């Protein structure tokens, strides 16, 4: 390896040196303050509860005294939420509270039932377990205790039913006491006393019923009035059967995971129950499985999580809008009115309505969407028992250490029966620290995953390295439950799905660590309306699925580890309409949620949607003819512009002067106001230039109809873009909003004038490229001013000559705008480009938009953000200021590890995007990603996400080429591959010394880097126009990952013989799935037709000897010779071949927001160079072929 070049290059890329640079002078700043909290906080937290504890534990009796209090609390809860209720309501609520308890009780009861011997004195056990069973269900990991319970689940459900039936024990209802701390919950346990006698019968009850009941309870049919307990029992039971099936499915999940933990569980079980008389555990017939019981412990809670799951998956993953809306009537509906309604329902609702409401939607959605996923019911003999198992069950092992140690000592209440006590105490114990939990979780499934992704691949011998199917992002090595709630890789991706523990380890791996974000992409997600948005008090992290609940009242932040209180409002779950289940709130079940923010999140009243169009009308622009296309598009989409009744719109045209348009309502026609003083731009009239779209729609339409013809005979060739932008800034600064600039040439007048810097003779120079940076900081400063006023500038450049995009792009880059470039636009001569422009405009005008946005990215203590990539202004170390945010922009973030993560095994990242919707609502979209932390180099390699790495490297290389030179950037890219492969080899993970070995996870790395080096942005030696190059760079920096990957490495398919083999069946249509081909001319045959998908462009290459059948059927031409040279669409012909191809094309298109342009390329056409430049594995005059590149890498490695 070349020692000197090696280090230097790395530094250029940044990532290898981060540690040293930051480490020296800069203290870790990010998480610093948070550290102090944990130590102090927990102490106080724990201190208080103990007092309650003894009292509650003491016996059932005291509970009764407390119960009234509980009731009050409960009543208060309702009264708070429902001010409307008459005082009498208080009385009413009391019964309702009873209903609630049922929900909570069940967990406790199961315990009783489970232990047949206990039947004699069932009261105690129930009481004790109850408190923690609830949490355990959710955080299975934390509560090791409950194993004994697990077997009982069925029984417990029954008992609950009986409880309901027996009004005798009103006290029972208390368990609901959500407000109470863990200890508070103990009171609820007292309730079981009632059931105690019942326990006997419970055992008898068939498991099926039991589960059903438990289910209903789990769902938290909160308010079911206590008045009709018997009925409730029935109602729940029926519901249960539905749910029971669900449980079964969830159980299956658990069972799969179980094996890993068996050992732990056993150990744990023995330990915790060691003191307990054997009778407690053994007696149940249900128990047969020693290993399983642990999981079953949580059974009652377990199925509850199951419900939420469905919800999660529906809303988040599958993104079916239905799912999101149905289960979360309240949550999804943003309006407060609905909230009120819901509350009313709760208060007044009879039991039946409430239960159905909560339970029914869930199972349905679950079955429809997720039904197939869990098919393992047979795995465990007694299905009834298993059904109860909590999905989180396997997490227990982590708990054990704490459990064991603490349990014995902590037992403050010896009074409790022998075996109950230990379990109970465990509950009361502070839960194991996040780190411990995560430690246990982290490496769980590692072995299997690593094996495959670490499989050494000899790149030189692997001829067909590209898998025929699209590569899926690697799955983080997490437990299934965490995996299921984790953020979608489309939204949030990390280059290393196993986060290295230390910067040293990261440096050893020679891979960049970073995130790729697509935060505002179009998706349906749960929307939460809540008065209090629960956040960590020290680091302001939003509550998310990866926090840990220490008990009912406290949660521990997963980023800074501070312990926070759970606010009362959070105890109520709007989805199931139950109280006391903070762990089932949508925030906890979804890693992507959206909050409706209160006025706390506003610096000013939410701005209206405001759009200003700045149009170039110089001779050059008119000649190109874009104005007509633009006006037509806008006219068509005027009603679809996102916004509400406050939406405002304005127009401004410029050549050597600036023209404003007065569109004041009441005018008979638009008035044009010309400002010719471009050195000192002023706004001619104050408020009639940016007008309410609704009020002035007719005038706007008139203007759009008139605009194209107004300038047809202009002779003005100058362009005063700078002054026009200044005018736009002045016009928009009171409101903020979006400025869309259409420019067709180099600005030649006024501020911001640019000169041509490109030397056409240097286009194919191999010595590096100059002028990649801006020529002036005018546009950058303007962009910063705009950003400060919440204005984003989107640039449409439609120029066939050099326009110095490097300078112009700054105006969009730093104001969070987007850049569009149509290099050879002409409305007549280039119809493909025109169509593309039209379709892009259509999308651009109608796509979702967020105004005055900021995005903050938080990460686990120890990690820090190094650099951001994308279009925005960085306002502080972790805060991006985005004047506008659009669904098509992606961001990349480089991370560094400032402190060792050795004390945790999960690293979390949270991106929170606060924005004003086009309807004037302030919203917060939160994405949370959770990844395991590893300490082994091989694990780091196993978790490498080669696509994300490629994207991040591309961003880094582009920064490098602008700040340093293109040659540097290219060397850095090459070194990135060489270093990482050398690091892998040095790791000794392969035994074959010969050849070029890469782990399977990185086998595409050299290919992708070679492809990167052949991109317009980074290539040398091939003639590339400077603007094309710069635009390509902008694209890399601002596009989401999937788009970048398609640009870098397009997909190539053979399409003249599409078959239904391996086809994808969606609804009624069959989408053929031809295998992906490698990007080499070797794969092209003269008798075939091939489709290349480059993201923005589709090429359909037709070989010379392509069968005439295909040409006739699909292209509609009689033979090859008659295919027109600039064909840009596929005719709609009525035959299977054509239909198949068109389904395939539309399937390719439906996932992307901008419609790609299609070019039909004939073999001999001159246009084929556009096609062939994407065959990155082939040799060109100035660049390696893939094989040569591999040899080059090998050579570099041995140096």
């Amino acid at each position: 390896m070349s020692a000197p070049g090696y280090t230097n290059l790395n530094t250029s890329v940044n990532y290898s040196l981060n540690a040293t640079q930051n480490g020296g002078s800069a203290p870790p700043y990010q998480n610093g303050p948070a550290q102090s909290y944990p130590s102090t906080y927990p102490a106080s937290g724990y201190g208080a509860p103990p007092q309650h504890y003894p009292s509650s534990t003491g016996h059932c009796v005291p509970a009764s005294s407390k119960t009234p209090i509980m009731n009050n609390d409960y009543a208060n809860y309702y009264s708070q939420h429902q001010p409307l209720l008459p005082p009498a309501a208080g009385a009413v609520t009391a019964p309702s509270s009873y209903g609630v308890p049922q929900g909570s009780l069940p967990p406790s009861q199961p315990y009783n039932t489970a232990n047949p011997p206990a039947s004699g004195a069932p009261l105690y056990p129930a009481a004790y377990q109850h408190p923690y069973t609830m949490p355990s269900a959710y955080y299975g990991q934390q509560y090791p205790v409950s194993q004994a319970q697990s077997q009982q689940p069925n029984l417990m459900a029954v008992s609950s039913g009986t409880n309901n039936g027996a009004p005798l024990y009103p006290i029972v209802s208390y368990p609901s006491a959500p407000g109470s701390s863990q200890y508070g919950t103990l009171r609820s346990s007292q309730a079981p006393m009632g059931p105690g006698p019942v326990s006997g019968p419970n055992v008898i009850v068939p498991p099926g019923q039991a589960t059903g009941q438990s289910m209903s309870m789990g769902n938290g049919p909160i308010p079911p009035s206590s008045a009709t307990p018997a009925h409730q029992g029935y109602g729940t039971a029926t519901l249960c059967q539905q749910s029971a099936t669900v449980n079964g499915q969830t159980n299956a999940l658990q069972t799969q995971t179980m094996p890993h933990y068996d050992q732990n569980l056993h150990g744990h079980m023995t330990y915790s129950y060691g003191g307990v008389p054997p009778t407690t555990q053994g007696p149940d017939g249900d128990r047969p499985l020693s290993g399983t019981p642990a999981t079953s412990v949580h059974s009652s809670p377990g199925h509850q999580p199951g419900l939420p799951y469905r919800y999660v998956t529906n809303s988040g993953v599958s993104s079916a809008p239905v799912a999101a809306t149905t289960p979360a009537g309240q949550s999804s509906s943003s309006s407060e009115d609905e909230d009120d309604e819901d509350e009313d329902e709760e208060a007044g609702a009879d039991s039946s309505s409430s239960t159905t409401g909560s339970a029914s939607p869930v199972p349905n959605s679950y079955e429809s969407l997720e039904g197939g996923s869990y098919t393992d019911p047979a795995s465990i003999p007694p299905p009834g028992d298993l059904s109860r198992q909590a999905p989180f069950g396997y997490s227990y092992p982590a708990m054990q250490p704490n459990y064991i140690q603490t349990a014995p000592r902590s037992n403050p209440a010896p009074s409790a029966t022998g075996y109950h006590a230990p379990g109970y105490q465990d509950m009361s114990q502070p839960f194991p620290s996040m780190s411990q939990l995560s430690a246990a979780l982290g490496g769980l499934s590692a072995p299997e995953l690593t094996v495959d992704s670490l499989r050494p691949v000899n790149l030189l011998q692997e001829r067909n390295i590209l898998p025929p199917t699209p590569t899926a992002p690697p799955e983080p090595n997490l437990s299934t439950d965490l995996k299921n709630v984790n953020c979608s890789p489309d939204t949030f991706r990390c280059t290393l799905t196993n986060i290295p523990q230390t910067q040293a380890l990261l440096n050893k791996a020679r891979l960049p660590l970073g995130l790729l974000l697509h935060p505002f992409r179009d998706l349906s997600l749960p929307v939460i309306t809540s008065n209090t948005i629960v956040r960590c008090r020290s680091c302001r992290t939003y509550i998310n699925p990866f926090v840990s609940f220490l008990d009912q009242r406290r949660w521990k932040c997963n980023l800074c580890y501070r312990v926070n209180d759970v606010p009362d409002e959070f105890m109520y779950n709007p989805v199931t309409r139950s109280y006391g289940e903070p762990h089932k709130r949508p925030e906890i079940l979804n890693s992507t949620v959206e909050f409706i923010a209160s006025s706390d999140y506003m610096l000013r009243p939410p701005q209206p949607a405001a759009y200003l169009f700045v149009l170039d009308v110089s001779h050059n622009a008119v000649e190109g003819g874009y104005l007509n296309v633009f006006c037509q598009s806008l006219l068509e989409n005027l009603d679809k512009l996102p916004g509400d009744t406050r939406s405002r719109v304005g127009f401004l045209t410029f050549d050597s002067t600036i023209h404003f348009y007065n569109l004041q309502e009441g005018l008979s026609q638009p008035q044009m106001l010309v400002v010719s003083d471009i050195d000192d731009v002023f706004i001619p009239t104050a408020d009639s230039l940016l007008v309410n779209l609704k009020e002035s729609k007719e005038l706007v339409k008139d203007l759009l109809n008139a605009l194209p013809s107004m300038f047809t005979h202009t002779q003005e060739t100058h362009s005063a873009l700078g002054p026009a932008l200044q005018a736009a800034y002045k016009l928009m600064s009171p409101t903020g909003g979006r400025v869309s600039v259409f420019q067709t040439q180099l600005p030649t007048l006024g501020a911001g004038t640019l000169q041509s810097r490109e030397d056409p003779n240097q286009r194919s120079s191999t010595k590096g490229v100059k002028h990649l940076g801006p020529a002036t900081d005018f546009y950058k400063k303007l962009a910063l001013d705009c950003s400060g006023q919440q204005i984003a500038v989107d640039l449409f450049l439609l120029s066939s000559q050099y326009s110095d995009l490097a300078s112009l792009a700054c105006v969009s880059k730093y104001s969070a705008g987007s850049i569009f470039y149509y290099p050879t636009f002409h409305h007549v001569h280039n119809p493909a480009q025109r169509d593309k422009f039209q379709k892009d405009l259509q999308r651009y005008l109608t796509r979702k938009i967020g105004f005055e946005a900021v995005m903050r990215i938080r990460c686990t203590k120890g990690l820090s953000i190094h650099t951001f990539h994308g279009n925005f202004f960085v306002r502080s170390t972790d805060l991006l200021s985005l004047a506008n945010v659009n669904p098509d922009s992606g961001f990349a973030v480089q991370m560094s590890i400032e402190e060792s993560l050795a004390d945790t095994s999960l690293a979390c990242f949270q991106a929170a995007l606060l924005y004003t919707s086009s309807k004037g609502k302030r919203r917060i979209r939160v994405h949370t990603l959770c990844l395991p932390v590893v300490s082994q180099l091989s694990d780091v390699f196993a978790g490498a996400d080669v696509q994300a790495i490629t994207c991040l490297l591309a961003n880094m290389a582009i920064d490098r080429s602008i700040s340093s030179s293109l040659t540097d950037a290219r060397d850095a890219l090459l070194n990135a591959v060489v270093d990482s492969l050398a690091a892998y080899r040095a790791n000794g993970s392969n035994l074959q010394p010969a050849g070029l070995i890469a782990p399977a996870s990185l086998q595409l790395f050299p290919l992708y880097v070679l492809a990167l080096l052949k991109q317009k942005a980074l290539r040398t030696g091939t003639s590339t126009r400077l603007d094309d190059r710069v635009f390509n760079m902008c694209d890399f920096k601002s596009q989401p990952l999937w788009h970048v990957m398609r640009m870098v490495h397009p997909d190539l398919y053979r399409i003249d013989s599409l078959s239904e083999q391996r086809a994808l069946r969606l609804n009624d249509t069959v989408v053929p799935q031809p295998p992906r081909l490698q990007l080499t001319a070797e794969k092209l045959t003269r008798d075939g037709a091939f489709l290349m998908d480059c993201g923005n462009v589709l090429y359909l290459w037709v070989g010379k000897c392509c069968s005439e059948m295909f040409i006739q059927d699909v292209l509609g031409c009689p033979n090859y010779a008659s295919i027109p040279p600039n064909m840009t669409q596929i005719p709609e012909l009525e035959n299977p071949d054509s239909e198949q191809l068109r389904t395939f094309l539309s399937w390719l298109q439906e996932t992307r927001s901008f419609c790609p342009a299609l070019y039909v390329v004939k073999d001999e056409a001159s246009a084929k160079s556009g096609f062939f430049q994407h065959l990155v594995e082939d040799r060109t005059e100035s660049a390696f072929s893939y094989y040569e590149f591999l040899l080059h890498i090998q050579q570099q490695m041995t140096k």
Partner: protein
Amino acid sequence: MAFTFAAFCYMLALLLTAALIFFAIWHIIAFDELKTDYKNPIDQCNTLNPLVLPEYLIHMFFCVMFLCAAEWLTLGLNMPLLAYHVWRYMSRPVMSGPGLYDPTTIMNADILAFCQKEGWCKLAFYLLSFFYYLYGMIYVLVSS
């Protein structure tokens, strides 16, 4: 003992270096504020940029003074910093105003760390040279 031009140069340099020390401290504080999110980078750059040239000019000024006083050793000690200043200003980002710091790139962790390190190094250099000038002044006063 006589009050020579060299002694005057040292006295002047002593005073100016004290000023430069304040400049360096100011820079360090400013970058630390950026790092801890207290300040908006635009504001911070606007306050820092006007200070850059004065600092460089002050340093250059007493270098010239030492040149005139023929204090070669002192001048030699200062040359590296002088050269660094020239290089630094030549390679600054495209800016219309004076100064070095670009609000759009200053938050880049590498650049921020570099600036902070630069601040500390300069502070150390100025402190050392402060005492050196003190010594030099006394030495010149005593020896002549």
